[in-house]
């Protein structure tokens, strides 16, 4: 099927109507230096049959490993109904409500999504979704700067335990708008940020603080104390949360005495497959008083002229099709299809279902950690509670161990040495409800034989790795 449905005659008729000789003339205002003439490195087209075959071959090379990697993207069971419904034409092809008021079904779905996210995070208002968790952190930081009109510094404190990719993306997106992101040191004994650490920022002009719960290491931060510290100094609190964990943990709206001001996160755990890293969806919720600074679309429920309930896009005056460069965001979207899947997933699970998934993740991860730390040369890196991820310290460099595990069909976790060299050989592992006791045994057995077959590292080698 041709992507552009116009025939050459259609195009000619349209050009004649507007009095333009050829299509190229319409792009004249783009300077020649910015135009790309050819797409180097992009091969020419393949037929559907050829592409199908190529992709199946590529997929086969991945195999079907047991995945114990989390670190921001999580393998959860997705009920078949989720994508069977999400890919129905009514949802799938009406992707975004261009003619908003004629798309009542899509608007209602977005409204339901917003309602569920607001309820899950304990805040008053949600937008219709964002690109992903990382860009949601960037958007929340920009939003905090707009909303906090007394703070002039544009300084954002980001706990060192926030996902490293989220920190990089926030700096890449918002750094060019003069926001400064500063990492707050974490305790290497606990894998969390002690509220006492913040004393060094006393008396400084800080716009907002970003706190992830559970943090990147899976550990639980003292969110109440951190939030209260920030609010006592008029610093806005941005919470980064995993939606599944909220079935068990206190929602951001209840952190400390006042609750976090903005909550964001990655919605992938809600019915979206891993798919090699995307597309995913970000979410954002906030207090009503900050709603005008919130980026993205918001769907509202209203009454029509006949007094019947209906749905409408609201607060559009701040969006980029109206406000252009002054819009609350110029890079955000409503991730329509993924949001549809997330909404269906949450409706199917209900609060009880989500709680069972979360409890099961916690139980499986405890089982995994206890099985792995029984192995000589493996210990938990941090003391204290975690949710469904945990950092393990190994007695030798992690990369080679992971490679050996992969050969045995186990994706054993994420090697943290590139992200947190100070931790030494550290491995972030995760088990969701998809892992059985047999899977966990398979991992433990594989790791045991790998660590046994080669000699463990000496203290000197460990020191060298930690210092690298």
């Amino acid at each position, binding site marked *: 099927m041709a992507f552009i449905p116009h025939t050459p005659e259609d195009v000619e008729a349209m050009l004649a109507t507007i009095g333009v000789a050829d299509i190229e003339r319409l792009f004249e205002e783009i300077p020649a230096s910015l135009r790309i003439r050819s797409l180097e490195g992009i091969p020419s087209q393949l037929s559907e049959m050829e592409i199908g075959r190529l992709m199946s071959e590529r997929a086969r090379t991945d195999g079907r490993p047991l995945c114990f990697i989390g670190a921001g993207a999580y393998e959860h069971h997705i009920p078949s109904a989720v994508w069977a419904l999400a890919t129905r034409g009514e949802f799938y092809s009406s992707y975004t409500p261009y003619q908003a008021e004629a798309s009542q079904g899509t608007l209602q779905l977005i409204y339901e999504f917003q309602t569920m996210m607001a309820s899950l995070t304990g805040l008053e208002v949600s937008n219709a979704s964002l690109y992903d968790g990382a860009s949601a952190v960037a958007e929340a930081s920009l939003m905090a700067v707009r909303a906090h*009109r*007394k703070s002039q510094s544009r300084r954002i404190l980001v706990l060192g335990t926030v996902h490293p990719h989220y920190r990089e993306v926030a700096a890449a997106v918002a750094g060019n708008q003069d926001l400064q992101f500063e990492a707050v040191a974490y305790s290497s004994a606990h894998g969390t940020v002690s509220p006492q650490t913040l004393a060094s920022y006393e008396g400084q002009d800080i716009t907002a603080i970003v706190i992830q719960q559970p943090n990147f290491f899976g550990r639980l931060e003292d969110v109440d104390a951190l939030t209260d510290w920030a609010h006592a100094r008029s610093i806005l609190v941005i919470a980064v949360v995993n939606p599944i964990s909220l079935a068990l943990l206190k929602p951001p709206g209840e952190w400390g005495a006042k609750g976090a001001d903005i909550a964001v996160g990655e919605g992938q755990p809600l019915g979206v497959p891993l798919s090699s890293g995307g597309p995913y969806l970000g979410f954002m919720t906030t207090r009503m008083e900050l709603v*005008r600074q919130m980026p993205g679309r918001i769907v509202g429920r209203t009454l029509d002229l006949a007094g019947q309930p209906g749905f409408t896009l609201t607060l559009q*005056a*701040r969006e980029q099709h*109206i*406000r252009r460069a*002054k819009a609350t965001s110029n890079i955000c979207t409503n991730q329509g299809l993924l949001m549809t899947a997330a909404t269906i997933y949450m409706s199917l699970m209900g609060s009880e279902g989500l709680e069972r998934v979360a409890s099961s993740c916690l139980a499986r991860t405890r089982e995994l950690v206890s099985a792995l730390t029984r192995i000589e040369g493996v210990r938990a890196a941090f003391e204290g509670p975690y949710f469904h991820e945990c950092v393990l310290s190994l007695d030798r460099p992690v990369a080679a161990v992971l490679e050996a595990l992969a050969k045995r069909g186990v994706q054993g976790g994420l090697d943290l040495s590139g992200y947190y060299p100070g931790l030494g050989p550290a491995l972030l592992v995760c088990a969701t409800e998809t892992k059985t006791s047999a899977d966990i045994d398979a991992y433990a057995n594989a790791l045991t034989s790998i660590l046994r077959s080669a000699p463990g590292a000496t203290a000197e080698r460990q020191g060298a790795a930690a210092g690298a």
Partner: protein
Amino acid sequence: MSQLPPDLRYTKTHEWLRTLPDGRVEIGITDHAQQSLGDLVFVEVPEPGKSLKEGDACGVVESVKAASDVYAPIECTVTEGNSQLTSAPEAVNNDPYGAGWLMRVRPASATAVDGLMSAADYDKFVQSEST
């Protein structure tokens, strides 16, 4: 026809300025501006103490169809924003030169206002803009 009080000064970005007895200057948007925007649903005014250079965006007036910046017509320091507008933005529509004022400022130069347009000049400017 929009009203144009003769004792005020006006700008090309549709703000008006009134010099108060204590030397401060009150700033709002013109009747013409509020009519073009339509019913306002939200007004954002600057914080007291904020220093502004001429042309700085310092507030936002938002209607159901558009959100427009308000620009500082002169170099000044904000002494007061009209906090009543937070709960009653419609004051800008109903009384643009009175209760709908946006901010009061201390000008950097006492004569800064004199260089701006008179009511007659602004009227001509609006006519020329609409043709």
